[in-house]
């Protein structure tokens, strides 16, 4: 039971300048976008766009400005625009990030900002890649609860500690930023990749699940966790802050000890 919170004061003194504000500064950015459209040409090219943007704008806003005002054919996926749907993972200045979570002011705007599709998946058009191989790996780890016992009438019990055990890996939004930042995945398309392992971890370490051994066996495959070279690219790429490399290490450890 959480402790009751003391009733907050009816009125407080607010510090001066609370909430920040003032005029939002503008600045110029040079956006360099990787373009590819097989309907037009088999070659990928770079297109340059010069834009005036606001201090609160994200890379996604810059892409929208291009699409809506300059070149309607620029194609990219996006939906929620605040980092929870996982549509707009792309390579920004050589790093995998979500365009909607990357503020322009946090990038070096004195140089061109490069935007490319994520690597290791076939490019369909501009920043859009074929996600099917990524989801195929995800499906192979049996990413769903498997429980062999009788269904209780009420909820299954789970202690807060057991729930905490896999909390980090429940945050995954399947954006593919981790998997497509992995050098092993770039060279070996058969490798499950970090995201599939993260989603296996989420069930392997769930006290309600009975199929951990099966998943460990799947990940013990030659294209499984042992291909991981611990380069930490995935952890750095994850827009949800999941400790991906640590999750992979925990799965490796569980395979070795056969203990979850």
């Amino acid at each position: 039971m959480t402790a009751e919170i003391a009733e907050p004061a009816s009125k407080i003194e607010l510090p001066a300048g609370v909430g920040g504000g003032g005029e939002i500064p503008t600045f110029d950015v040079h956006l360099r976008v990787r373009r590819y459209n097989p309907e037009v040409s088999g070659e990928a090219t770079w297109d340059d766009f010069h834009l005036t943007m606001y201090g609160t704008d994200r890379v996604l806003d810059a892409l929208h400005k291009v699409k809506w005002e300059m070149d309607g054919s620029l194609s990219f996926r996006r939906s929620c625009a605040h980092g929870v749907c996982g549509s707009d993972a792309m390579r920004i200045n050589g790093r995998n990030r979500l365009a909607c979570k990357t503020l322009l002011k946090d990038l070096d705007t004195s140089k061109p900002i490069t935007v490319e599709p994520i690597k290791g998946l076939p490019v369909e058009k501009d920043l859009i890649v074929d996600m099917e191989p990524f989801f195929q790996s995800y499906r192979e780890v049996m990413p769903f609860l498997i429980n062999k016992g009788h269904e209780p009438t009420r909820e299954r019990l789970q202690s807060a500690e057991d729930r905490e055990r896999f909390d980090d890996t429940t945050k995954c939004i399947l954006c593919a930023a981790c998997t497509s930042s992995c050098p092993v995945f770039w060279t070996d398309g058969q490798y499950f990749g970090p995201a599939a392992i993260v989603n296996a971890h989420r069930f392997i370490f769930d006290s309600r699940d009975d199929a951990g051994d099966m998943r460990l066996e799947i990940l013990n495959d030659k294209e499984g966790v042992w291909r991981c070279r611990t380069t930490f690219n995935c952890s750095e790429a994850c827009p949800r802050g999941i400790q991906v490399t640590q999750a992979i290490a925990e799965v490796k450890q569980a395979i070795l000890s056969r203990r979850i």
Partner: protein
Amino acid sequence: MQVHKYDVVIVGAGGAGMRAAIESGQRARTAVLTKLYPTRSHTGAAQGGMCAALANVEEDNWEWHTFDTVKGGDYLVDQDAAEVMAKEAIDAVLDLEKMGLPFNRTPEGRIDQRRFGGHTRDHGKAPVRRACYAADRTGHMILQTLYQNCVKHNVEFYNEYYVLDLLTVEEDAVREDGTSYKQKRVAGVVSYDLATGELHVFQAKSVVFASGGAGKVFKTTSNAHTLTGDGMGIAFRRGIPLEDMEFFQFHPTGLAGLGILLSEAARGEGAILRNSEGERFMERYAPTIKDLAPRDIVARSMANEVREGRGCGPNKDYVLLDLTHLEPAHIDAKLPDITEFARTYLGVEPYTEPVPVFPTAHYAMGGIPTNIETEVLQDNETVIPGLFAAGEVACVSVHGSNRLGTNSLLDINVFGKRAGVAAAEYAKTAQFVELPENPTAYTTDLLDIARNGTGEEKVAQIRKELQDTMDANMQVFRTADTLNQVLRDIASFEERYKRISVQDKGKRFNLDLLEAVELGFLLELAKVMTVAALHREESRGGHFREDFPDRDDEKFMKHSMAYKDDHAPADGTAESIAGIRLATKPVVFTRYEPMVRKY
């Protein structure tokens, strides 16, 4: 053109669509069509929780939940539907837990529950802990869990298949009282494959619409870019009415200037709202439950504070959400995502600084009318056999004129499940309805007009102007003048929309073309919403008319039904405004008489 045949086709792969698919997929041959990937759906952006009277942490029961839902909706709720939802809420939560959803737990290992706006103990006596939750990413967890279970049950998805038309036929029929009418029947849907630009016809015995909301008619919104009301628009164009479209919910706590949602769970966990004087102003507007009043009341109170000059910031145009009296460890455990949004997008540290917030367009209470079996209605009573709807696209109506927080995650689970079962059961005995001749004719025209236009108008510019006028004139406060302004603006946008051109002429992932089509839906729906708002000369729930500030049960205790009718005269009378005919539908009462709504 390719033709596919399925028993059941589900349009949309958010919470309602996937919950339906889990049921339908195990009973009948089912396909799920989505214009996104399933895990991109906006259910995933829901944060705070899903209410059910589990009574895990304090006394509660589903009847109290029903009452709160009815009162929260300012008595425009169909009470039979609210009873179904509150009763089935308990199993809906337990179903999700059994599917694997990682709810937060009590020290005893049960599903933990927390407070939420408008949810009370014993008919309004005090806030109650009813919302089951997984940190502040409950919607994410629901979406992931449902997708995981769809994978488990081998549900067949058609990703990035954008449904653009509903195929129906009309048959002569006679009612019991001897009057004749046209009975609609569903034959299937037409979809556009984004990857190739090809049209695919899906012939189906049952079609379930679960395609979500239309928040992008507004500028400041918590909604995804893709929430353009396609399902509502398609149904409307095919002669199906839309119910209660004037009721749109503005969530009180959007990040100021951006509209990104900060969950009501923040206030459920103890955060409060303050104005520029540092006052906890909700004490004045809702003395009993204060910051946990329903959203319409809190949003209006905030807008009023700003209007009366007690807004914050250089332009005095927002108020503050204060979490600074909460323990950082408590914030991290219960509200990690939303505090990160404040840091990422506004550069504000919620441990030590209050967060600038202002109401953001959040949820359509109205939609495609259905009965409690999720069957779509073509008028007040007549069911369209084989056509179902659930979730935000539908109006069953459990939310009335104002939805309570968490009741949407509940709605999609309860009525999504009902829709999946009903659609599959119907398909077991039904025959396929023959496809109309040349089933893609309408869709081909729609796309060709958008693709081949050579005018000088830009889609993004018209959309921006539409969103601007909706924010300025159709938001928390409305008058006949502001609403007529919107209608005049929309009339000019419709003219300009005929002169658009898209730059991308290709077949492959032509999202430029897609946005043009989406704008067509937005214009149509914005007009329906505004016409219905103009007609409703009273204030109720999320609809507040400054020129009619009181609720008027005598004249307006009824649902509005908007029909597309190109013959409706543009004479400005309340019942018919240029192409839209308005009618009404009675509200269903079971246990509760309307009372004055105070908190």
